[in-house]
């Protein structure tokens, strides 16, 4: 097992980070909360990174390949993230804006189950976004970056909050449709 250093951590974390963020985002409603949990998870991963090497001994991989390391790191990171979300939920014990424990368990399990599939879908969505005219893409980016202020956007654009939500829904559906088309085409190539 090679000695893992700070650079290795950066490389492995960079590889895992998009999936990790997506995993947390699926379990936590609020984007800002998810962002904070992602940050905490990153800190825990870094603090415990030394022990990550010992864990590899159990995989019987003395000289793991780059890919093997990345896969194992991602799996480990997801477990740590799940604990961080659980910890966040404990802090929110009195908050009724979160799903029940049973629902959380189900979503967390299925979130792992569908992770690979959802990763492919995100790649396809990015391709769809890249195909959009720049102005249209900027409009979506702006709306999403400020979506926690729907009233402000609605006032600025002269639309109702409901109309803003409907527009967001249409954007999601059209991106999902485009992504599914991309994925189906790739499967048949």
């Amino acid at each position: 097992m090679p000695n893992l250093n700070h650079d290795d951590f950066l490389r492995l974390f960079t590889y895992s980070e998009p999936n990790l963020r997506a995993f947390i985002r699926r379990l936590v409603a609020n984007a800002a909360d998810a962002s904070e949990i992602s940050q905490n998870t990153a800190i825990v991963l870094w603090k415990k990174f030394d022990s990550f090497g010992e864990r590899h001994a159990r995989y019987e991989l003395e000289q793991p390949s780059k890919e093997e390391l990345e896969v194992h790191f991602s799996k480990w990171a997801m477990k740590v993230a799940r604990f961080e979300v659980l910890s966040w939920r404990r802090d929110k014990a009195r908050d009724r804006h979160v799903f029940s424990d049973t629902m959380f368990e189900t979503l967390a399990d299925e979130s792992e189950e569908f992770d690979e599939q959802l990763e492919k879908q995100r790649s396809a969505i990015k391709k769809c976004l890249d195909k959009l005219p720049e102005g249209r893409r900027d409009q979506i980016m702006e709306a999403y970056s400020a979506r926690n202020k729907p009233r402000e956007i609605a006032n600025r654009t002269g639309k109702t909050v409901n109309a803003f939500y409907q527009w967001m829904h249409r954007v999601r559906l059209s991106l999902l449709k485009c992504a599914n088309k991309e994925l189906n085409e790739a499967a048949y190539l």
Partner: protein
Amino acid sequence: MTDDLKNLFLKYIDGSISAEEVRALEEHLTTDKALRKEFFEHINVDVAIENHPDFPLYQSPSRVSQFEGNRVSARWWNRMPAWGWAAAACIGIVLAFGLGQFSAGPSGVPGIVLRNDEAVVRGEGLQYSLGDRVAFNEIDLEKGWLRLELPKGVVFDIYGPAKGRFLSAERFELDVGRLNIDVGPAGKGFTVVTENGDIVDLGTQFGVDVGGDRRAKVAVFSGEVEVYSRESEGGPRLLEEGEGLSLDSAITSSRLMSVNVADDQRPNRRLAEDENTFEIRDNLTSEQSLRFYGIVSDGMREGVNAYTTQKVVRWWSDAGEVFPAELSGADLVQTFHHDRDQDDLEIRLDVRRDSVVYVFFDERYSPPEWLPDTLVDTGQTVRSGPWRPSLVVRDIEPDENGEIYVRYRVWRTDVAADESLDLGASFNRNRGKDQTSRVMYGIAVKSH
């Protein structure tokens, strides 16, 4: 999707949902797995947008903080999504390029040979090498193992002797032999056609074994399949993870009690059922259960799957200990974890040769009466894990890696050739409600 549900999705994702609306959304999601997947997909759009390099980054106070003592700046943190996407895009390009070279022949189903383990194909000039791109029609495998990648990412393992043919890219007719199919996300609907019935995949890993008597044995390793008996009047039978069925004829079917599963570290090491040194059965009827016991020949060691479900849970030595030498190389019986709640469970092992039978029992709980009456505590321990945070492990503290492991005491007894050993429920009837967290016990058999 109704407007109400659509709004609940949107509000949840935007964080503007009320407590009442959370409950309403949960009610919708609880019973509908397909809806939960749709829910994930909607969230996925947001994540993809947030990860896009053009997305204006959200500058919360937490993002401008630094890693404790390591001088990792917020700029580094913020750049990572873009790098991540660049990497993902590169992988996508490589995959697309690889698949782009792959073209279907004028007839047959296009496939890539991913693995060839001493596979001998009947017929001249039909030997396949790793990486060959071939249009497959009939496969007549004398011996060995071939792994193919089919369209839509279906991974198709065929173990000789076996014979069958592709009816289309999504249908394979199996005359005799064994197949393992991993359909992946895009391959849902892949069908194995046998004389007595069809097995239709619903997104899963499953195996089909057709013997000389044409009985088709079906075992589901993850996900679900539908089994259609050829002439049965009833509808299809749904099989879930850890369940197995034998299509005895075009009309009748029965529970598949045990399946010799491939060892994932030695995938070609699998005995035929009649080569096993013991037979395992239980008192549950086909109506009560279609669960099978997975038998891994000589498979007991560190890192092997502990149950037919709970795929991430494996056997390990106790922390800081070596794996008990006397267990290594024993035949492992993967039990069905949900049987931990079956309080009338009776398992019988019929042993063909002098053997030692081991039972691994959750150390947290007092053993049921049958255990000390029949077996002896060796004083040794093993662990299983890592477990997902859930009810069964709620009283266990995660280790330093944040992982949860359950400790088991190892019990053993000698059983003479042609004798039987009866095991009971994991549940201790006299201990009542304090056992909600226990796990199902494990079994291993070592023949002399």
